[in-house]
């Protein structure tokens, strides 16, 4: 070892003159590059045109969005639109977007917001209030629930782009074959599913009764809320403003899901499903009933992707006896970053994106339900999506998730509780509900 070191040192000494200079030179270059690098990154686009950064997610139907971008580019040659595509999952997209906003990134001008984010984005100061630009007269053109979702403490922070609400999809051919009409109560749905699946199994056809979203993630809250509300329970008690999940009706609904749906009419695998996996089962003809958002209509009736195209019906979600049907409100909004240097151009883009013609394009080409009331009477849209007129009141009455700036934290508690309650047959639902309630109340108390 010592010998080796000595020889290395001698080698260096012999060639010191040449080598030192060379290595030091390389070093200096490296250092200079290191110092210059950040400057290079923040270099602004050429003067004259405005560069507009739009943070969006990976769409289900990219062609429709490409068309929208090209229309905008043609009409606004002075604005250079740069899109940044984030992940498809709402939670993952939230983490990416808020990371940028936390750092006050100037590379975000316009972003898409899930319906549950405006209170958080408003309270944290990330979303710019749009009251000056988004006039009250203009707001009247939109669905009331969608406007409410974008309001926080009397100001408005986003413009609704499209709306989502939970819908029951079913196989028209199978229900007809067994002489059923779409189920009105959850119990009815379970009974129909059992009859159909056992009848089909007798003929050697393997089919499940139901598929939905029951993985531990945001979608679980949406699905479970529909069961709880349709049994007369609630997530947050509107009178007391405290958690309602430990209430009798809420616990009953959760128990129903565990005992009658998971691993019974639905495969146990639904505990790992988000929207795409649960829809796959349905469009492969392997489920009688399916709960999803409106976009599933487009996919399940597309003969290229679906084996059940033309055999799909939709209905309101069932409810429990004595309750009424509830759909969870979803949907996406366009917001403007508080740190944007191009608020005017940003508003031009937001106005364009949420305009009547673009919403119509999104409805026709991507199956997205519009947020402008007028479009529900549009002949062209109704021809392509006859169910939009029948489902209009579902969109109008869709129920929002709890509105609080701490929603992500509340949601995580709910996800954990629901996942535990439905995936573990031996879990004590009452006890878990009380524990989760206490955590939610503690979080809600922080914002008061």
């Amino acid at each position: 070892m010592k010998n080796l070191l000595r020889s290395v040192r001698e080698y260096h000494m012999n060639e010191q003159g040449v080598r030192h200079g060379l290595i030091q030179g390389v070093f200096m270059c490296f250092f200079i590059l290191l110092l210059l690098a950040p400057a290079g990154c923040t270099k602004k686009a050429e003067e004259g045109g405005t560069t507009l950064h739009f943070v969006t997610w990976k769409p289900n139907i990219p062609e429709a969005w490409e068309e929208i971008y090209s229309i905008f580019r043609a009409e606004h040659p002075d604005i250079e639109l740069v899109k940044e595509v984030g992940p498809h999952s709402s939670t993952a997209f939230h983490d990416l977007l808020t990371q940028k906003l936390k750092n006050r990134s100037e590379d975000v001008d316009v972003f898409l917001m899930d319906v549950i984010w405006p209170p958080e984005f408003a309270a944290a100061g990330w979303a710019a209030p749009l009251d000056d630009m988004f006039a009250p007269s203009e707001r009247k053109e939109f669905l009331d629930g969608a406007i409410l979702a974008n309001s926080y403490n009397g100001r408005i922070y986003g413009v609704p782009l499209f709306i989502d609400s939970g819908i029951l999809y079913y196989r028209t051919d199978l229900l007809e074959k067994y002489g059923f009409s779409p189920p009105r109560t959850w119990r009815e749905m379970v009974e129909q599913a059992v009859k159909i699946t056992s009848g089909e199994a007798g003929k050697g056809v393997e089919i499940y009764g139901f598929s939905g979203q029951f993985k531990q993630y945001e979608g679980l809250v949406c699905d479970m809320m529909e069961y709880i509300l349709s049994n007369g329970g609630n997530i947050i008690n509107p009178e007391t403003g405290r958690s309602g999940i430990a209430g009798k009706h809420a616990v009953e609904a959760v128990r129903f899901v565990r005992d009658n749906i998971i691993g019974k009419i639905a495969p146990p695998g639904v505990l790992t499903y988000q929207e795409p996996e649960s829809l796959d089962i349905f469009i492969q003809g392997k489920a009688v009933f399916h709960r999803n958002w409106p976009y599933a209509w487009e996919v399940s009736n597309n003969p290229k992707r679906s084996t059940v195209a033309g055999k799909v019906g939709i209905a309101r979600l069932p409810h429990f006896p004595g309750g009424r049907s509830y759909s969870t409100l979803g949907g996406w909004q366009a917001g403007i970053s508080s740190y944007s240097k191009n608020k005017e151009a940003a508003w031009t883009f937001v106005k364009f994106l949420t305009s009547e013609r673009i919403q119509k394009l999104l409805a026709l080409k991507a199956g997205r339900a519009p947020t402008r009331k007028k479009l529900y009477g549009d002949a062209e849209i109704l021809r392509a999506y006859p169910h939009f007129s029948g489902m209009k009141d579902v969109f109008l009455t869709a129920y929002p998730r709890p509105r609080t700036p701490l929603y992500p934290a509340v949601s995580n508690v709910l996800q954990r509780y629901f996942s535990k309650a439905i995936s573990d047959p031996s879990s004590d639902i009452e006890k878990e509900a009380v524990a989760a309630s206490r955590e939610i109340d503690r979080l809600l108390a922080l914002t008061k």
Partner: protein
Amino acid sequence: MKLSSLSRERIFALALIAPCFLFVVVFAFYPILYSFYLSLHRIILGIPSLGQPFTGLENYRDLLHDRIALHSLANTLLFVFISTFLEILFGLIIALVINRHFRGRGMVRAAILVPWAIPTVVSSQMWRFIFNDQYGLLNYILYGSDTSRYSAWLADPVYAFSAIVAADVWKTSSFAALLILAGLQVIPDELYEAARMDGAGAWQRFRRITLPLVKPAILVALLFRTMDAFRVFDLVFVMTQGGPADSTNVLQFYGYKKMFTEGLMGYGSTISVVVFLMALAVTLLYIRVMGKGMLKAENA
């Protein structure tokens, strides 16, 4: 003249180390210290009106009473224990095999390193497909085309946890093997020849020669694997998101959720600091043990 050239050399050496040192300070020391600073404050991004009050050790006290954090800690420790044990075991077996001379050894050695060369995110996604309930390879291998018996592995708390361990073991056993192989290669053949002449059997040679001499290498592998296992995150993130029912929730993932999803910067930092301290403690322990082992080996 000589002295000045030596000191020049020393300055040059310092200059060489400087960027590396700077790198460590900026990207390791500073974030750790800053995390510690954050962990002493209550910072909730959703409620900026709260400010950033200094709360002392309150976050740490809350952590002790956080049943989900404690559950995640138990999961993490179980994961560290089982996965490291299996990785070292398989690593040793693999190393012993590829240390022998046989035709195509080069190929086998390269092949064994493939899992380790695949980014964890990619391999996690791959394992997620393997365990899928509808089209997963595992179900196909077990039940063939009898789809009625297909099982939803990741929907069951015990299987889901085992799946994560399996994916980690598959991926990093080869890394352990590589380190142990390096240890095996420095054992002189003469020792084995001498032992054989004295009539030692294969097991005896393994027990008395291989194992004691390869121990330092095993300890190094153990150290690396334990530290990595403590920081398990990507497997959970891709494969299960902590579900079902928190059965695969580990501390790092819980901390990530607190910090990046819920915006609880102070509390999230507290969790990272605790993970860091635990990994540090384990490392110090190993280094002490290892240091002693090394000394003994040298004296002998």
